[in-house]
């Protein structure tokens, strides 16, 4: 509620204040993780609006009139691309914006979406590229270049910010690699219903196996539960991250019966709010890493 009010207030503020030379560069980012990148590069020179806020699902989002207004007034609109925000193209068109639309994944080697699990993505590509820190650096470079193009006066500042942030990302990358290497190779497997971690798997070698035949909407049948248990036993999977089996008693039963550990909450598509454990991209990656390490270290 608060964020919506803020958005409205921001929209009003944009409408009322006369445009001056010192006006910050208005930019829009589609979702929270991308917004965090943009904020880190743009620093104080930009006025950032993030359309889908923390904990929001950017796959299915219905834009509000306030969003259209923000997009219309923006100088740059950052999107993830790779078919992540299917609704964005229409919003850009409907708002009639003259903004430069930048797909932050430009230059990322896109993976194909795994068959069957990526039901949200009709096209073939897996858009969750930020789950690899190497890709995150490409995001940052794209954002830096776009900001410089739109606001040449701030070139030095953007470059400085980007260098500092890229160094942080390098540190994060090393951290994840070290932690992943500390887990015995045979134990680098988890069952998770998150279908957004393929890039993480490719870069850091933790294997993510999706549970068979479990859906959030319906009550689990004995066969669903039996299948998961068989799978965990057969593939000797040490941990389960089954947030979308929303009955905690059932997850506990599965864990008890297989000896697998229950993992905590993972963040994959959106950041948490400021008080949560994944308020920024770096926090999010660290948080997920900690969850994996805690569940997989014996």
């Amino acid at each position, binding site marked *: 509620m608060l964020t919506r009010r803020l958005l409205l207030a921001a929209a009003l503020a944009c409408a009322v204040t006369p445009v001056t030379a010192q006006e910050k560069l208005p930019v829009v980012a589609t979702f929270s993780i991308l917004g965090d990148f943009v904020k880190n590069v743009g620093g104080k020179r930009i006025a950032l609006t993030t359309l889908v806020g923390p904990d929001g699902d950017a796959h299915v989002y219905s834009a509000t009139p306030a969003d259209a207004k923000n997009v219309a007034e923006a100088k740059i609109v950052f999107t993830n691309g790779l078919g992540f925000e299917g609704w964005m193209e229409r919003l850009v068109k409907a708002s009639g914006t003259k903004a430069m639309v930048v797909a932050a994944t430009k230059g990322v080697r896109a993976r194909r979406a795994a068959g069957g699990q990526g039901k949200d993505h009709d096209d073939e590509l897996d858009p969750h590229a930020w789950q690899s820190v190497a890709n995150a650096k490409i995001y940052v470079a794209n954002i830096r270049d776009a900001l410089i193009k739109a606001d040449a006066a701030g070139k030095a500042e953007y470059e400085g910010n980007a260098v500092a942030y890229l160094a942080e990302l390098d540190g994060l990358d090393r951290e994840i690699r070290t932690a992943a290497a500390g887990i015995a190779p045979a134990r680098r497997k988890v069952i998770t219903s998150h279908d957004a971690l393929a890039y993480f798997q490719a870069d850091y070698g933790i294997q993510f196996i999706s549970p068979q035949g479990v859906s959030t909407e319906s009550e689990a*049948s004995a*066969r669903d539960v*039996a299948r998961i248990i068989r799978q965990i036993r057969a593939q000797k999977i040490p941990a389960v991250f089954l947030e979308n089996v*929303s009955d905690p008693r*059932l997850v506990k039963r599965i864990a008890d019966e297989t000896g697998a550990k229950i993992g905590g909450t993972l963040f994959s598509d959106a950041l948490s709010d400021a008080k949560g454990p994944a308020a920024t991209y770096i926090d999010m990656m660290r948080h997920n890493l900690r969850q994996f390490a805690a569940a997989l270290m014996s």
Partner: protein
Amino acid sequence: MYDFFIAPFAEFEFMRRALVGMLALSLGAAPIGVFLMLRRMSLTGDAMQHAILPGAALGFLVAGFDLFAMTLGGIVAGLAVAIGAGVVARATELKEDASLAAFYLVSLALGVLIVSMRGSNIDLLHILFGSVLALDDATLILLAAFATITLGALAVVWRPLVLECVDPGFLRSVSRAGAPAHIAFLALVVLNLVGGFHALGTLLAVGIMMLPAVAARFWATDITRMIVIAVALAFLSGFGGLLVSYHLAAPSGPAIILVAGLIYLVSLVLGPVGGLRRRFAPGRHLEA
């Protein structure tokens, strides 16, 4: 044969636990169902079922998925409604069914309100649908304890209870045990519904109580035999329902109740006591 009937239970502990849970539930709930039916209170179970929701919801609100809190809350709320309705029925002009309806409707609305305060309605669905597949040690012990209490208490109040089913006027003329027995019986109803709600959820728990009891009516005239048959049918429903859930990937709670419903239909058609077969194909007329 083995693959179909035994293997699921041999391979998976959760299936064995579910089966044990259903056995405990059958032993407690089915006899209660028989008495409810004989006393023409078949729908009381349904009403009481709704009445325990706010208690369970309150327990859930305070402690989350905590067995003890939800059980205690359910029992307290159920007893409050049962006794409240009983007191109003005895003290005023209102009949028991009417006062029960009033109490349980208020109680149900309160329950939904409390659950919604927690926000997510996924949680509400889990309260309503329970999970026989996720019975842990504590829940199994609880179910077994409820079954034990029920059977023991039934043994104690058996005579007044049976008499009140058959001839309440006579019972009143010879004994004052009627009212205490009635209260104890209502308490047992609440106890078994709360137990059933852990295994099957609030909506379906009353099914495992009433359907086998009603089906047993078609197989026996003697109350003792009727209870034994009801327990057997309830357990059979549990067993069959779990197999259906396992082989056809159907949600387990509804599967169990639907098997019980199927057993009821079969009994209705084939049962030797007052069933359809008797009506349309009567046996040979006995001549003295």
